């Protein structure tokens, strides 16, 4: 393992993080807040970043497969550790564990928070939380590949280690150009959402916070009630962009380029839309059956569709107290927690494409029993899927379930009840950020013991990096020359 390029890349990213912190000074200056905490964070990041990035200046950037996985894991950890500084230095949080949980929840776009009241926080901190999510949404390393020009062949190793989903689609032969184009699209979507939110009467600051958290499928809000108290127009805009954030950005890029045939052929996108429609209809029917006629039909449909999209895209915004809904509706929300949206989107969890492969393969297995001699091929978007991909999908899902269950088991040892342990483990591995307790919604983690917060932070990272990237580091063969 060559550690020199690892240190250089981490140094560059710390410098980038310092730039992000600098942006947070803008609302601080505008609203006349104390800047000392952020200034201290920037000064440390700048000094450490320069020392790390330029101490091995003559080192080539090219990294191998092993270094790629190692860099991705270490970079996410380093980003989260540096991200704790603004919380600690502004005294928004006094405990390092709380700050690490909030930071990890931000960068992994989970959106779980330890703040019981976000409305009393300095505006700089609220922007910092949303910025962390925005950077984490597209992936810190995809950003590295896009902005650090010195990457050679190693760019692909990093992209493969971080990009989500079973297939790592490219829109340009050069990985650097693929990453750059995805980032441009990501920025364009963010700006478009800000414009639409401002047009709807929201303040510029509020719009920026909301847009950064929506497009990254993060879910941090500047209000305690998430988006529940916002206007229907704002909720519709947020809902639309949550949906967009769940679409594969390569497919979105094709749509923007007018290649609608390719978009229409995408089976995962079709299934993603189908799941949203079917689950929304099911929950509407269940609620209608339990409560009788709705007083306000539009409000009820908007609320349910919004919450379904918030769960499936793993954004985790709340528009209503979903824990008051019938148990069957809550169960559907809980199941959605594991689904996730499309691969190559900013969402977390298992992803629709893997669920599709799993279901199709199970169907083929049943068919094979009836026709033992038939040669059956699993197809996705009319293309055959290799055995290797199917095997990876199965391995991923099995490991996902095992980590989720072990996480829940460990939480019960830390004193949590059965309900909370299951929900907290699920919302962390899927990066949803919201869940259920026995008595209502699980939104605030401030009362959780430190051990639970550390465990959940690790689970969030494992979920965000799609399990393999982290688990591979624990294999003895990984460290052999």
């Amino acid at each position, binding site marked *: 393992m060559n550690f020199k390029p690892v240190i250089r890349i981490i140094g560059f990213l710390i410098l980038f993080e310092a*730039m992000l912190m600098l942006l947070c*000074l803008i609302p601080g200056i505008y609203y006349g807040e104390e800047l000392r905490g952020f200034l201290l964070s920037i000064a440390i990041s700048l*000094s450490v970043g320069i020392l790390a990035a330029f101490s091995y200046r003559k080192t080539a950037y090219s990294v191998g497969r092993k270094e790629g996985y190692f860099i991705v894991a270490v970079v996410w950890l380093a980003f989260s550790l540096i991200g704790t500084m603004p919380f600690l230095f502004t005294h928004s949080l006094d405990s390092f564990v709380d700050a690490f949980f909030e930071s990890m929840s931000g960068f992994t776009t989970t959106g779980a928070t330890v703040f019981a009241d976000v409305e009393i926080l300095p505006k700089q901190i609220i922007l910092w939380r949303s910025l962390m999510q925005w950077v984490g949404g597209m992936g810190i390393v995809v950003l590295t590949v896009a902005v650090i020009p010195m990457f050679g062949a190693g760019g692909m190793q990093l992209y493969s280690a971080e990009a989500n989903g079973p297939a790592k689609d490219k829109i340009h032969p050069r990985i650097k150009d693929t990453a750059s184009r995805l980032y441009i699209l990501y920025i364009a979507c963010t700006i478009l959402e800000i414009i639409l939110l401002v047009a709807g009467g929201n303040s510029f600051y509020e719009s920026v916070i909301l847009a950064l958290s929506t497009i990254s499928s993060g879910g941090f809000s500047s209000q305690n009630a998430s988006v529940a108290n916002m206007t229907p127009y704002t909720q519709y805009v947020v809902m639309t962009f949550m949906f967009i954030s769940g679409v594969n950005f390569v497919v979105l890029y094709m749509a923007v380029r007018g290649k609608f045939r390719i978009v229409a052929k995408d089976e995962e996108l079709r299934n993603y839309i189908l799941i949203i429609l079917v689950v929304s209809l099911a929950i509407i029917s269940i609620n209608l059956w339990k409560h009788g006629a709705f007083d306000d039909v539009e409000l009820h449909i908007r609320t349910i569709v919004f919450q379904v999209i918030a769960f499936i895209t793993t954004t985790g915004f709340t528009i209503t107290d979903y824990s008051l809904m019938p148990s069957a509706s809550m169960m559907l929300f809980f199941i959605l927690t594991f689904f996730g949206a499309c691969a190559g989107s900013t969402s977390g969890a298992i992803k629709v494409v893997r669920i599709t492969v799993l279901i199709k393969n199970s169907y083929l297995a049943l068919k094979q029993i009836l026709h033992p001699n038939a040669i059956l091929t699993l197809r996705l978007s009319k293309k055959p899927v290799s055995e290797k991909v199917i095997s990876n999908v199965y391995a991923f899902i099995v490991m996902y379930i095992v980590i989720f269950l072990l996480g829940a088991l460990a939480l019960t040892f830390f004193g949590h009840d059965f309900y909370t342990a299951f929900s907290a483990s699920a919302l962390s591995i899927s990066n949803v950020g919201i869940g259920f307790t026995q008595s209502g919604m699980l939104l605030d983690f401030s009362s959780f013991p430190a051990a639970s917060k550390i465990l959940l932070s690790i689970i969030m990272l494992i979920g965000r990096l799609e399990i393999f990237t982290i688990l591979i580091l624990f294999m003895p063969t990984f460290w052999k020359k």
Partner: protein
Amino acid sequence: MRTKILLSVALALGIASLVLLILNAADQTTVTTLLVIGLVCVSIEYFASKKTNSDNEQAG
């Protein structure tokens, strides 16, 4: 040479800001200015090395 000068300036400004903040010896505006200059130096170096790299790629 350019890299050495820019990065040394940025590093010096970063450490100076840190010391000033710890000793509480300067106001927020001064420290903000120092840090902005430091990050501008880093950005100039970043874009200059990007251009050099792009030129080298084209030449190659």
